[in-house]
């Protein structure tokens, strides 16, 4: 138990590939503090020109939905196709929406 406690906390890494796009989750890593997490995220996840900006977030700060609630939360959307904006044509300038 002590071993687990002494481990560096886990961080989730989000990388933005280019200006205008959103940050996408790409993985996680262990680091002692925010500065180290950013440095390691840069070294591990942007080696092949993947990014122009990086976010790191402590994994234990993320609030997640319960997989057991999946049916209740997400299945009701299944038969509501009218919520899709498929009938609208987006102008090119907002292509990344």
């Amino acid at each position, binding site marked *: 138990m002590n071993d687990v406690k002494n481990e560096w906390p886990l961080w989730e890494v989000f990388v933005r590939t280019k200006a205008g796009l959103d940050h996408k989750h790409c993985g996680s*890593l*262990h*680091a*002692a503090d925010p*500065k*180290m997490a950013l*440095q*390691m995220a840069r*070294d*591990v996840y942007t*080696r092949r020109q993947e990014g122009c900006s990086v976010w790191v977030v402590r994994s234990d700060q993320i609030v997640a939905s319960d997989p057991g609630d999946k049916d209740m939360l997400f299945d009701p959307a299944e038969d509501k196709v009218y919520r899709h904006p498929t009938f609208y044509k987006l102008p090119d300038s907002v292509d990344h929406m």
Partner: protein
Amino acid sequence: MQASIQLPTDPKLQYLLRIGDACLILGQRLGEWCGHAPIVEEDIALSNMALDLIGQARGVLTLAGEQCLQDYDEDQLAFLRDERDYLNPTIVELERGDFAFTVLRNAIVATWLKLLWERLRDTSDAELAAIAGKALKEARYHQQHAADWAVRLGDGTEASRQRCEAALARLWLYTPELFEDDAVDAAAKASGLGPAASELREPWLAEMREILDAATLALPADTAFRSNGKRGVHSEHMGYILSEMQYLQRAFPGGAW
């Protein structure tokens, strides 16, 4: 077996080799961490930096081959010289050491290279200026990476602090060499190729003081010891690293993949 190449005595060639070989040999040393670093993220970080340094060495050695020698390319310059024809400062060839030694050597060398690249952006050689512009960004990161670890280890546990102090005491012996002028520096300064070694000493010392202060490590005292790698007189570690580097090109001349 491939014979060694012979080099003419040319101050421009020597100035370029001092820079290119510093990057080449430190890149090779840092590469020794690949698969052995304390954590996987740091393994990748050190390998990234090794590759940055090899890239810088390629640029400078290619330039030296094109401008100062007729028949040699980067590979021949990197792998087919005799020990005495490598002009890197001794500090980069010292054995890999522990993580504290690695981090503090990187802090010392990256700070020196950063200041050198900064000034080389104004060199009279357009190609060298372009290499410097790119390398400067990499050196800034190397310096920051090393400085961050210096704080964590220097101001860390009793054990990490002791290792930092031991590493620093040893490394400091090899720093005066970085800032000693000779005829090569005088020629470079006169032609506008680049700064004399001694010009970087004060700014380097100021930045090192800042890094070591933050790490609560004391600046070691100066000693009378002088190393001479940049004049081709190397430590006992140089032969071993060269034999590893040169094996393939010597055994399979011209081998490429």
